[in-house]
């Protein structure tokens, strides 16, 4: 296999790790030195040639190849079997509606959530249960980090240069999780989107705000009202570019999901109720209508663990969620 990247020579792994820090090619944490052999293993596992173009960012004159995604995936700590998911995530990020220039350069410091559905979750150990948004799960951490390193190294989103975030966000280290599909018979997100149940699908959504909230109401209506209130309090940017694709993601925690299931609520019923509440006209300065074209623009994802009656709303920067099927060769 012929690789196009420039090579560097080091005495050992420790020197290589320090060299990558020195060159500004890390997120501040040590990386795995990307040897040609390790990158080739990624490309083989992804079933792609290194020269394959995954997408472009025309504003920056940047083209992202499979090889560069592979180099960054090795650095992030991915195993080769993770790479098909990384490829799908990069392709999703580079779709025009994901607005990759805007969402990676904004003053607001938005990050990106990578949500995985389908058999890849079990196959690779991408976790959607208790504490799934946090550290401790290798596939979640390394796949999410690979996307961020691509954003940093290939898209050139570097603080002081094209990254203009005022504060930035710890979500920019890594943010990948799975839908907890096995918890109930709720229709998985990817099936709602028209994919087959045995497809594996990645959804990438920019994250303007990750808004967790606790609500002890026992009826679904009370939970939906609180979810809607927190989203409306924060509001959501709108523009002509995203148009009717504008969407919000809602992560329903297990305790809330149990209450909804007890009341016979399907996921579609949750979407319809949230859409009804979220799109009501603005009622005041800190209560803003969300402009969402259809209940399907409320992407409901089951995730998290038991205990606290907690769910999360993810509002986007100026972009729409984008989806890519994971291709295992």
């Amino acid at each position, binding site marked *: 296999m012929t690789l196009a990247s420039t090579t560097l*020579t080091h005495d050992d792994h420790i020197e290589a790790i320090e060299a990558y820090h020195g060159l500004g090619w890390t997120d501040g944490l040590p990386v795995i030195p990307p040897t040609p052999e390790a990158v080739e293993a990624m490309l083989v596992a992804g079933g792609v040639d290194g020269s394959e173009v995954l997408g472009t960012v025309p*504003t920056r004159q940047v083209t992202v190849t499979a090889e560069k995604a592979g180099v960054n995936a090795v650095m992030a700590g991915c195993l080769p079997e993770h790479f098909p998911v990384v490829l799908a995530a990069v392709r999703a990020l580079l779709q025009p509606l994901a*607005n990759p220039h*805007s969402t990676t350069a904004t003053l607001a410091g938005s990050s990106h959530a990578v949500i995985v559905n389908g058999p890849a979750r079990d196959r690779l150990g991408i976790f959607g249960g208790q504490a799934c948004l946090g550290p401790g799960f290798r596939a979640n951490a390394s796949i999410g980090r690979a996307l961020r390193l691509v954003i940093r190294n290939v*898209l050139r989103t570097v603080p002081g*240069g094209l990254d203009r975030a005022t504060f930035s966000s710890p979500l920019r280290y890594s943010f990948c999780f799975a839908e907890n599909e096995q918890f109930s018979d709720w229709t998985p997100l990817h099936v709602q989107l028209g994919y087959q149940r045995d497809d594996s699908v990645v959804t990438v959504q920019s994250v303007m705000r990750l808004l967790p909230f606790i609500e002890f109401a026992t009826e679904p209506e009370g939970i939906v009202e609180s979810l809607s209130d927190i989203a409306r309090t924060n509001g959501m940017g709108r523009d002509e*570019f995203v148009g009717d694709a504008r969407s919000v993601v809602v992560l329903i925690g297990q305790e809330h999901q149990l209450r909804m299931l007890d009341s016979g609520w399907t996921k579609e019923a949750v979407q319809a109720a949230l859409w009804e509440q979220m799109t009501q006209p603005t009622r005041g300065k800190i209560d803003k209508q969300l402009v969402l074209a259809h209940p399907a623009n409320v992407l409901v994802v089951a995730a998290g663990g038991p205990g606290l009656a907690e769910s999360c709303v993810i509002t986007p920067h100026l972009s729409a969620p984008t989806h890519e099927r994971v291709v295992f060769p």
Partner: protein
Amino acid sequence: MPLITLDPTDEGTSTGFALAPRPASLHGQTLGIVANGLGLSELFFDALAEQLTKWDGIAATEKVVKPSVAVPPWPAQWEQITGSATVAITGFGGCGSCSTRSMRDALDLEVAGIPAVCIVHTALVPAVRALARLAGVPDYPIVEVGYPLNPTAMWTHDEANELAGQVLDGVRARLTA
């Protein structure tokens, strides 16, 4: 045994391009405005066009407001500008992604043969310089707006109008030979 590793960056290089030839004066030119709609910047651009018409004899103005702050113009908007403008201004470069996208708009206009200038807030100059380096034109001239004006164009109407007068000389200098 030495350890060989690979460069993770895009390694893209641009050799740059020649800027569009400048007219001797703005008299009789058609001014294109590629606005991103940030804050009160549209008011500022309108005031600037008015002043350029009054003092420099601009013959006509063609303005488009892009569908989002940090995206290219719609294809029809691009046709509208490139089909009529002979000089152009872009901006307002006051947020992280919109400043760099406005810089790209200016560079794209130059490639299309239309002399352009991007108007950028001081806070975002490092970002547009980074983009200009990627494009191979690191010294591409800009017009800079400084503090105390708010970077994201959260200005009063008076500030927007006064700013038009303040940048007039800089815009003229960068659009003419």
